[in-house]
C-alpha cells in the first residue's frame, strides 16, 4: 500500500476516534424530578373523602365529580 493510502487511512481513523472524545452537550446534567403524582397522596387530615389515596382512576373520577360541582346549573336546573 502506498504511503499516501496509509496517510489517508490514518487521518480517517483519527477523525473517527475523535468523536469518542465528544462531551455531552445537554443544557443541564440534572433533569428536574417532580414530586409524586397527585393521586399518590399522601393521606393527611386535609385529604377529602370520596376517593382512595394511591388509586389513580379513583382520583380521576373524584376530580371530575368535584369539577362538575362547579356547574350550578346541574344543581339548581338550567337558568341564566
Amino acid at each position, binding site marked *: 500500500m502506498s504511503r499516501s493510502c496509509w496517510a489517508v487511512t490514518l487521518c480517517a481513523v483519527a477523525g473517527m476516534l475523535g468523536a469518542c472524545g465528544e462531551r455531552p452537550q445537554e443544557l443541564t446534567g440534572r433533569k*428536574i424530578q417532580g414530586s409524586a403524582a397527585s393521586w399518590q397522596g399522601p393521606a393527611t387530615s386535609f385529604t377529602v373523602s370520596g376517593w382512595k389515596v394511591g388509586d389513580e382512576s379513583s382520583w380521576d373520577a373524584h376530580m371530575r365529580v368535584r*369539577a362538575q360541582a362547579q356547574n350550578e346549573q346541574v344543581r339548581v336546573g338550567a337558568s341564566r
Partner: protein
Amino acid sequence: MARMKFICDAERCIECNGCVTACKAENHVPWGVNRRRVVTLNDGVPGEKSISVACMHCSDAPCMAVCPVDCFYRTDDGVVLHDKDVCIGCGYCSYACPFGAPQFPSNGTFGLRGKMDKCTFCAGGPEDNGSQAEFEKYGRNRLSEGKLPLCAEVCSTKALLGGDGDVVADIFRSRVVVRNSGSEVWGWGTAYGKPASGATPKPAKPEGTK
C-alpha cells in the same frame, strides 16, 4: 388522564377579587406578589368586563421554552410547575409569558429580584407532596388532597372554573347554550371580531399547505 385548566367566564366575573384573596391566604403568598389578579376592561364604563388571570398552564408554555436553566417541568396532569432551587430569577419567563403570570418578590435592601413565583394550580412543587418544605416554597398542594384550586372553588359567581379541561369546557359550553348565544361565542369571530366590523381578517394559510 386529566388536563388541568382554568377558564374564566367574563359574563359572570364581578371583580370581587375573592380569588386573589383566597390564593394569597391559602398559599401564604408574600407581599408584592399576586399569583392571580383580576383585570377589568373598560373599567367604569357601562358594560365593563372583568377576567381573573393567572398562569394558564399552557400546553406549549413559552416560559419553559425560554428558561435558561430549565427550571420548569410539567406534571402528568398538565400543570406547569417550577423548581425554585434551580431558578436564578433572571425574569426571562416574565417577558415570555403573555399573561404576566411569573411574579418576583421584591425583598432586600435594594429591591433584589428573588426567585420567580407563580400559580401552581395548588399542586405544590418538586418536594414531597404535602411536606413543610413544599408548603414554604410553593404553598398548599390541594390536588394531592383531592381538591381543586381554591381560587376556583371559592368563586362566588362561579365565573372562574378550574379542573379537567374537558369538564370545565363542558360547563362553559352549557352556559353558552342556556344564554342562547349559540355557536358564535366560540372561535375566531368572538376572539377577534368579524371582518364586517373592521377586525383584522383571518390570516391566509401559507402556500403549500392543504
